């Protein structure tokens, strides 16, 4: 029922090579395959992740992968040194508004200052609401 993953003798961490049939119509596949891929051994991924030293992947069967990624690293190294062009910072500062950043605080987080006037207004409002509610209840009860 299930494939024996080790039956082909690839027990050294290298993944099974799976041929990619890109000519097969997309409609024939259950899931689109995405870009074609080349299987890379787990050990080589570990080296690329910086988990093991290069000496641990210096084996004949992986030398092609290792050489390929060392070549790629020449360009990746250059990309790692890239700096923001000097004029960009000035451009950003020119575009930033002159006024202070707006503080958008939801009403329930805002501070309330209690003054005698606001207390009177709140009390009057509560009294009015209470009277109206009582009147409505009494009318409904009749």
């Amino acid at each position, binding site marked *: 029922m299930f494939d024996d993953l080790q039956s082909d003798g690839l027990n050294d961490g290298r993944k099974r090579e799976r041929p990619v049939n890109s000519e097969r119509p997309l409609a024939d596949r259950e899931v689109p395959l995405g870009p074609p891929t*080349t299987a890379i051994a787990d050990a080589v991924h570990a080296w690329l992740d910086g988990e093991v030293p290069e000496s641990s992947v210096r084996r004949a069967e992986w030398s092609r992968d290792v050489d*390929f990624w060392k070549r*790629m690293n020449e*360009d*990746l190294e250059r990309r790692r040194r890239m*700096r923001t062009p000097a004029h*960009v910072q000035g451009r*950003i500062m020119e575009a930033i508004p002159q006024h202070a*950043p707006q503080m958008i605080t939801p009403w329930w987080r805002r501070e309330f200052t209690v003054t005698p006037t606001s207390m009177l207004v709140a009390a009057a409002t509560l009294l009015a609401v209470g009277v109206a509610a009582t009147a409505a209840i009494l009318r409904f009860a009749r």
Partner: protein
Amino acid sequence: MLAGDRDEFTVLITRYSDPLYRHALCMTGSPDVAEDILQLSFIKAYQHLAEVRGRFDAWVFRIVANGCKDWLKNIRRSHLSYDEDDQPSGYATPEEELDRTELRSDLDVALSSLPASLREAFVMKHVEGRSYEEMADLLGTTVGALKMRVHRAREALQALLEEKYA
């Protein structure tokens, strides 16, 4: 800074712009677009400073990363190139310089053919030099998922380029 101290904000731009620019440039492949995304992201960051929760650099990274993804959703580029960095060339001969330009161009095209999520993971790992834990924190996903994305990106890039460069 919330009181409107633009000088303090300049310090933040100086400190964080390079890794953000690298991310935008590698994701979009265009220096002009990368500059625009960086500018809009810092303006947005300035306008919404009061909403920062946690680290500023992680927050502004997410703004830039989302800006790149939005741009990629709308634009499909077939060939990408960008200007030289300010570093002096370390190559001795014109042939080596030509090889370097060709590799850069081929890698740009290969990167642009990857799905955005794979490209993002690859760039964060191999250009920005971030750890998987840091990437997971920034992108709000798991280390395992990101390892899978980086591995798939490598395998796709190697499939595209190994005939010429292996």
